[in-house]
């Protein structure tokens, strides 16, 4: 990718960024009433206290309630540059940036790990199926993949909850830590506990990606194995292993990288919904709670951050493709 193309791509991403913030702002504005009034009402119900009028006025001024929508939008966006994304009602007025900051790391960790698991399992299986085309194992794998592609993540999570309750631990109520390690500092035991809890959600999350990756890998490799350069490699007397792994499979991976941009949203979707069902410490549960309680700054900000993540993910996928495919780089 030439520098020029890269700059063009960045400029386009910048425009999309603005559009994303507008859509997120619209989501914040959709429910009736404004966030501050909701918060004030909630404070009155829960704490029985009234907000000092000065604070109330300050918040109104800060977020521009009562002013026109464009002004409100600009005030909201302006806050980003100071790290201010608004405040959350359900977390007692804590800044949204803080709540999101605490959970965003785990969200990305889950997405990236599930991508690694999905690719790590699906690529070898795809190669195997393509080199054993029309055999029973190929047929079986292909149908299992279609099956895996069909199972909605949240159903898998519910079923897992069912299995976990019956087989593993009758006290399991979700989360990524046993109650003993919930608030403990990191240690070897805590890490082991964490990995034990992580394994199954990670597996559930990877199934969709695995199935998709497998299908693409198999189809790509089948196409490539019919091409002349493969024939040439064989004619040179290369071992079949070298032909497949060093020549064909190496190229068959490229479309997977360019599909990364389509795979990330699927994984992010899965992470969010599985986290809600299993109560994992990612952005899912606060997002869900915020929506139910109409805590719109939190909900809108999470939505925006997820979208921005995907935007950045797409850019990275483009760069990776340029790195792995010389045709993209030069042309």
């Amino acid at each position, binding site marked *: 990718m030439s520098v020029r193309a890269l700059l063009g791509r960045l400029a386009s991403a910048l425009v999309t960024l603005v*559009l994303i913030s507008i859509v997120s702002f619209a989501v914040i504005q959709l429910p009736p009433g404004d966030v501050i009034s909701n918060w004030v009402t909630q404070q009155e119900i829960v704490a029985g206290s009234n907000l000092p009028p000065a604070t109330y006025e300050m918040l109104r001024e800060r977020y521009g309630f009562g002013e026109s929508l464009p002004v409100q939008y600009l005030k909201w966006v302006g806050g980003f540059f100071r790290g201010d994304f608004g405040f959350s009602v359900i977390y007692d007025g804590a800044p949204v940036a803080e709540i999101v900051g605490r959970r965003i790391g785990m969200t990305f960790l889950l997405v990236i790990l599930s991508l690694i698991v999905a690719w790590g399992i699906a690529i070898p299986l795809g190669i195997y199926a393509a080199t054993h*085309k029309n055999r029973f194992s190929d047929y079986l794998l292909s149908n299992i993949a*279609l099956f895996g592609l069909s199972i909605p993540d949240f159903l898998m999570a519910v079923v897992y909850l069912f299995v976990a309750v019956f087989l593993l631990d009758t006290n*399991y109520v979700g989360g990524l830590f046993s109650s003993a390690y919930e608030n403990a500092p990191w240690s070897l035991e805590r890490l082991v506990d964490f990995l034990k809890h992580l394994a199954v959600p990670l597996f559930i999350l990877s199934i969709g990606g695995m199935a998709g990756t497998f299908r693409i890998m198999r189809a790509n490799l089948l196409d490539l194995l019919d091409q002349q350069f493969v024939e040439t490699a064989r004619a040179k007397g290369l071992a079949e292993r070298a032909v497949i792994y060093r020549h064909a499979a190496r190229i068959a991976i490229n479309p997977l990288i360019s599909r990364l941009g389509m795979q990330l949203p699927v994984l992010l979707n899965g992470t*969010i919904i599985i986290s809600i*069902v299993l109560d994992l410490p990612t952005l899912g549960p606060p997002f869900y709670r915020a*929506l*139910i309680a109409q805590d719109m700054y939190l909900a*809108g900000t999470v939505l925006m951050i997820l979208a921005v993540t995907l935007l950045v993910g797409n850019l990275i996928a483009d760069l990776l493709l340029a790195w792995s495919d010389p045709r993209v780089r030069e042309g």
Partner: protein
Amino acid sequence: MSDRRTSVPGVPEPAPGSALPAVSGAARGSTLEPTVEASVSEADAYRLLTVRQLMWRKFLSNRLAVLSAFVLIALYSMTAFAGFVAPYDPQDGVSRLSYAPPTPLRFRTEEGDFTLRPFVYGLKSERSTKTFMLEFVEDTSVRHPVYFLEHGEPYRLLGIFPATLRLFGTRDPDARVSLMGNDQRGRDLFSRIVYGGQVSLSVGLVGVAIMVLLGSVIGTLSGYFGGWFDSLVQRAIETLRVFPEIPLWMALSAAIPPTWSPEWVYAGIVVLLALLGWTGLAREVRGLTLSLKRRDFVLAAEASGASTARIVRRHLIPTMTSHIIVTATLAVPVTIIGESALSFLGIGVRPPMMSWGLLLSDAFKVQVIALYPWMLFPALFILVTVLAFNFFGDGLRDMADPFS
């Protein structure tokens, strides 16, 4: 080495599960193979088939797709004739039967005699001597035969015609047949699933119908005209697609005012799913239009003075129909999952309306899953429907390209 043999180009090999030999492969291989005569005459025989016949053969050769088609027909007719299939009214709860387990259909009496007509035993609750909890015990003193095509409680067939005929049921209203158990309020889960399917399954069809309309019209226009309209549409699609779909569905669905009636909420959710889902189809149709509009038949139509509307309607859309149908079929399960997920999380359709996702949300508590596992039955229905649509769509995709 068999690995090598299967991947050598030019050797004809049937596609998996296909009865058709690959015609193009046979033609290519014929110069090398000793069986020139056989492959040529075989190719000739197949050339006599019309495209439509070829497509049919292609579809029928995919057994999973055919099976899925039957499953879908069965599911949709079950929900269309919900009143007939469901033995009880879905809202009619018997508090005595709160969380009563599924009643087994029995064919063998206590004395060990076999009866062709299945029967059930009534349930009575007894306090367990061990746990002191109320437990359901079958009252084996009276057998309640299950009769088919019996007149039962009145209902409205297709929501219009008053009817009383039911597919099955017992004659004693106190001994109920609950194939899939009862929920907290003692309502028959099977009846609720049958009625819930009306929402779950129709969301897919109605939502996708709107999607097809939006996607094909916008996609064709954007591909055919290009220019500013195209850039605008592409930008809108790009923005919509950069949002992960489930969180965006959730955010918009949560914004549906709580004051709306259940019917309006249902309509709102269908429209919402459609408005966020048309982008994939629009992209595909745009790509197809771009490649089609340079083809001779479109240029010929243009040269002979056909209007744009006519070209789009008579030439572009019919050529793309098979692609649109395949994409639309594969969009149905996505929409069904969307509605199920939203209802499951409590931000979809609202009671008294039922959908499979909403029914499943009753099971979304660890204690419920542990004690009353039959509450997970709606999950099975969602799964089977989604699988059937995916396998069916896969079959249609092969069918749309009968020459491969």
